[in-house]
């Protein structure tokens, strides 16, 4: 079941806002609604589904309604219309007591300006949500300590927030949001107030935490790079409406309209695309073949080297044409002439992290998945093509930059 399912979720600001719902459904524009009905659109009929364990990023410029939308999810702002299901229950219909329980147990929140309580110590901040639930002091301390350890702030529990740096304060905010082990964590521009370097550290840490905890995270940001870095799914907002929902790749490669296109045109693709996007099929030979066969393969495929793999595609090394012919002359086996010191990388490595590796080596970079299984190869030409917005190399042999010419660089 989806964790969160919103249908036509709407917020209108103004007197007696409900009267605006039928007008919106008739397709009144923002301008018309403001001029003729004196209503301001906060969020306009948002439809989306958030699956369990996803990082769902809501992105938009200031005033696009993203902060309003995230507050509709825990009803810090009352929705004007539409439905919002949390694991099948309608959040919009919860009684005040039910809503409090929902906020206490199911949904945590991290704020842009941290919103730590200045009169409470770090640990008292972290345990706030547990305290209002009425959990006994000893137990909630333990839970809060665990949460604090998770964000790497053990030893700071008795400090006050104003004694901490911005990055540390937001870790406290994160620990507070996670303390009651909620199903969903809302993060409202959680890293926007931090310095760029610290921000990147926090993003990395969030991703690492996420790989352990598998929370459902709703992350608000105005920063496209941040959205692309951490989002599994991105919803792009403009004027209160969701313009496009998709994976980071969808948004970049198939912008739904001119607005999204303009939004993403300045993106540094090398920070978004990974080795797997620029990867070509690797030319391989298995170890049980002799050097003569290898030479024949090279001739047939028009390449000057081959990756040597075992039967399960585990990478063993690289053999060049010269080495292969030396092996033929000296009657050696392929494994005897193997070059094992070859550049390799993981499929999820960002292209901009590959530049240095590629600059330092004449050889192409082998892409290796888990268990050292050879997935493909990245060559310089394919990287440039990917950055230019071309298709990735997955379509194999038909691709012009693939094959012979490529491997010829080795």
């Amino acid at each position: 079941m989806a964790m969160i399912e919103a249908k036509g979720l709407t917020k209108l600001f103004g007197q007696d806002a409900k009267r605006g719902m039928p007008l919106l459904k008739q397709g009144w524009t923002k301008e018309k609604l403001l001029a003729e009905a004196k209503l301001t659109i906060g969020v306009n009929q948002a439809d989306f589904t958030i699956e369990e364990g996803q990082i769902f990023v809501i992105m938009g410029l200031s005033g696009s309604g993203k902060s309003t939308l995230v507050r509709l999810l825990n009803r810090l702002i009352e929705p004007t219309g539409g439905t919002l299901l949390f694991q099948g229950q309608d959040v919009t219909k919860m009684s005040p007591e039910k809503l409090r329980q929902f906020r206490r147990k199911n949904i945590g929140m991290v704020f842009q300006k941290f919103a730590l309580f200045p009169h409470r110590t770090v640990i008292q901040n972290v345990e706030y949500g547990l305290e209002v639930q009425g959990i006994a002091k000893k137990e909630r301390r333990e839970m809060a300590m665990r949460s604090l350890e998770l964000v790497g702030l053990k030893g700071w529990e008795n400090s006050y927030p104003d004694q901490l740096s911005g990055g540390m304060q937001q870790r406290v905010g994160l620990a507070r949001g996670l303390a009651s082990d909620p199903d969903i964590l809302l993060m409202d521009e959680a890293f926007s107030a931090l310095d760029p370097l610290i921000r990147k550290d926090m993003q990395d840490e969030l991703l690492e935490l996420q790989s352990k905890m598998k929370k459902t995270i709703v992350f608000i940001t105005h920063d496209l790079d941040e959205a692309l870095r951490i989002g599994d799914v991105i919803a792009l907002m403009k004027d209160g409406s969701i313009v496009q929902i998709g994976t980071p790749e969808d948004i970049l490669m198939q912008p739904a309209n001119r607005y999204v296109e303009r939004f993403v045109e300045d993106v540094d693709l090398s920070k978004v695309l990974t080795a797997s996007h620029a990867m070509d099929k690797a030319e391989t030979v298995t170890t049980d073949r002799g050097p003569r066969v290898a030479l024949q393969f090279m001739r047939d495929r028009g390449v000057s080297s081959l990756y040597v793999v075992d039967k399960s595609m585990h990478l063993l090394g690289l053999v060049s044409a010269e080495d292969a012919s030396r092996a033929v002359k000296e009657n050696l086996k392929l494994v005897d002439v193997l070059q094992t010191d070859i550049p390799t990388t993981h499929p999820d490595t960002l292209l901009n992290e590959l530049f240095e590796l590629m600059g330092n080596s004449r050889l192409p970079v082998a892409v290796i998945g888990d268990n050292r299984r050879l997935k493909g190869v990245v060559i310089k030409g394919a990287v440039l093509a990917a950055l230019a917005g071309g298709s990735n190399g997955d379509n194999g042999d038909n691709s012009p930059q693939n094959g012979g010419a490529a491997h010829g660089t080795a």
Partner: protein
Amino acid sequence: MGLPKLPLADWVEWLQDWMGDNLWPLFSFISFVIGGIVKGLNNALIWLPPIAVIILFTAIAWYIGKWRMGVFTIVGLLLIDNLGLWNQTMQTLALVLTAAFISILIGIPLGILCARSGKLQKIVTPVLDFMQTMPAFVYLLPAITFFNLGVVPGVISSIIFAIPPTIRLTNLGIRQVPAELVEAADAFGSTPGQKLVKLQLPIALPTIMAGVNQTIMLSLSMVVIASMVGAQGVGATVYRAVTQVKTGVGFEAGIAIVILAIILDRLTQQVIKKSKSHG
């Protein structure tokens, strides 16, 4: 302008008579409670030998403030005793503390309610303006009618004059709690009561204490006026000295009030300072 004069004075007198006739059980109850508190406090302060009270106050001042505060307290109170104004000063202290205590007891909850309801704030604000600007002598008269001569109408008029800062600053302090903190408290599922006790009151405490400080100072400033309706104390000494044109006696009694004011002011200031730093 051919309009006849509004019979406002008649209306007010009618209202006063009506209240006197119909609300006297309430007034005598209030009179009983306030009179009891003042008398109890006064008896306790006078029953103890002056030196014990002086040591007690000096210890409190030293503990809350710094050593200088302690020195000022001991010297000041010894001077009052030396001038022979001890009993009167303790009577005044009992009156002021009672007025301040009741003001806080009523003012803080009322301030909290005002902070929660914009409507109530709109009603209360002009009433507070009225209470602070209407000359005290004007409401002294009905106070005598309802509560007879003595210390009770003095306390009542002190409360009327001194309660507004506590209400205003409690309201302000709570409204000034940053919205994002209130939002955070809401987001973690606080009940309104939890939000008040765990967040709003602690954050607003320095502001509320500033209001309490003002309330104490204002009720001290009422002691001479209160003495006109029969409240005993150092205020009465001042009043007598003025009517008999005894400048020296008046000055001595005035000094006693000033010393009392400085001690009470510095003590509450220290509490504000402490509440501003953590916890």
